[in-house]
């Protein structure tokens, strides 16, 4: 199957620092591809480069393609309208706007926003329409950030650390939602929680020092204790424990699996 996204020889330099140095990988047209790596290896920079959000002072080289379309040098709003959904790290909901206004902002002229789908996934958003987004809990804000993107049809979703800073129970809820979402649209996910990775991801790309250190089957990676230890710095056998799938909601698992 043709990949939905192809990244070739991607290099990003920001303020003189070479954050990414020739990164190449592909995202399968179905399921979840996870981008892994220790802190500061360039996972978020990769997603931001794909969606055209590298800071103006930064320099991006290489090739990024979605199908036959080249994404580099295109403005972000055009990429997003073309079907590239982006859920940023730290949610980035508009705190001063209501939930309904946050959603309305994502509506596009000429298309029918899929409120039914969003409210079926997140009934809470419907109930809290008049509440200011800044007064929502972290989990609710994450739901809003994902819901906002799902109002429109997407060819690929980029999701950056959706479970960061969330309570274990909410982590489970977010994982469930992403699992359902990934049934209809491919997802490129940056995630630190290996229990979530184990549950969702089919393919994995591991970055180390701004380069691709490993690509392949995500579950295979998590079964290789020595490999996960060297690439991700996971010191226990937790990453290789298949039973942890059923323990996703367990606070202990959620904590120990954090990279």
């Amino acid at each position, binding site marked *: 199957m043709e990949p939905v996204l192809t990244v070739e020889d991607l290099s990003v330099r920001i303020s003189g620092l070479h954050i990414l140095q020739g990164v190449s990988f592909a995202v399968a047209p179905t399921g979840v591809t996870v981008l892994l790596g220790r802190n500061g290896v360039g996972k978020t920079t990769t997603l931001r480069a794909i*969606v055209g*959000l590298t800071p*103006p*002072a930064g320099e991006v080289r290489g090739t990024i393609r979605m199908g036959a379309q080249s994404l580099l040098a295109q*403005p*972000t*709003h*055009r990429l*997003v*309208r073309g079907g590239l959904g*982006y859920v*940023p790290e730290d949610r*980035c909901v*508009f*705190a*001063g*706007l209501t939930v309904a*206004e946050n959603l*309305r*902002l*994502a509506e*596009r002229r000429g298309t029918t926003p899929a409120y039914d789908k969003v409210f079926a996934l997140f009934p809470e958003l419907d109930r809290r329409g008049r509440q200011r987004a800044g007064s929502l809990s972290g989990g609710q804000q994450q739901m809003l950030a994902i819901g*906002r993107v799902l109002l*429109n049809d997407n060819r690929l979703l980029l999701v950056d650390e959706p479970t960061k800073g969330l309570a274990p129970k909410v982590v489970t809820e977010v994982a469930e939602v992403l699992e359902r979402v990934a049934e209809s649209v491919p997802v490129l996910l940056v995630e630190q929680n290996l229990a979530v990775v184990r549950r969702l991801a089919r393919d994995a790309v591991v970055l180390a020092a701004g380069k691709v250190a490993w690509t392949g089957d995500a579950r295979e990676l998590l079964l290789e204790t020595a490999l996960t230890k060297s690439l991700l710095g996971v010191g226990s056998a937790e990453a290789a424990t298949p039973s942890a799938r059923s323990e996703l909601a367990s606070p202990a698992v959620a904590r120990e699996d954090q990279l």
Partner: protein
Amino acid sequence: MGTVILLALTGLGLAALYFLVASGLSLVFGLADVLNFAHGLFLGVGAYGTWWAAGNLPGAGSDGFGFVFAVAFGVAAGTLVAILVELVLIRPLYSRTIEQVLVTVGLSLAGVALLQATWGADARPFPRPDWTRQVTGILGAQVPNGGLLLIIAAVLVLGAILAFLRWTRYGLVIRAGVENREMVTALGIDVRKAFTLVFAIGGAAAALAGALGGVYFGTVSPGQGGSLLIFAFIVVVIGGMGSVVGSAYAAVVVGLVQQFVNYYGTSGLGDICVVGLLAVVLLLRPQGIAGKVATA
């Protein structure tokens, strides 16, 4: 009592003038992060556009509907200049703060020089309806009608901007953009259109300030925009960058402080007090009265 009422209402008239200049300045900075030193030019274009139209444009004049037409012409000219400045000079320089400051300062100086070269450096009498030269008795005070006109105009502009921000799609985009411009683009919205729009709104409000300021002061001069811009910047900082309501509150505080201190203290002391107030706000509440929120 009559003196206090008079000082309060003339202070509010001054506040109205500051607000008309500061509201656009605040929105432009809040959304686009542009510190627009050329904003005074829009005021100058509005004032001279109205002055020129009243004397030369068929149908326009210094009274009645002719004056309204002249003001509309001045506002349209200021708005057009604001849009052109954004499209031609500012748009290529977004995210390049130093260059923006240099360009807008340069444009401000060049604009004043152009007005001087065209119509001379001296202040010229401003054509205005007779009733604006008269006064109205309010609670024992004889208040100039020109000041009352400014207050009414500022309240209407405040209401119109708030309604626009609250009820329209572009208003929503601007409010969101003031919070997080990058995320607005990540939702598929071309935020540059909103930049042009806030420049147009700011230009229109400043041009209206120019026209009504001419009525208030009775004259128009090339340097008027620049001197008002200094206090408008103070209002924007005290009110909170990006907050229209904050600018309104701050304009009232600055206008009243200036008027009362200048009257009861030494002339000019009010201006120093305003700068002192700015320093206190920057030290105690650097985000201003309302912080960076487009509506409140």
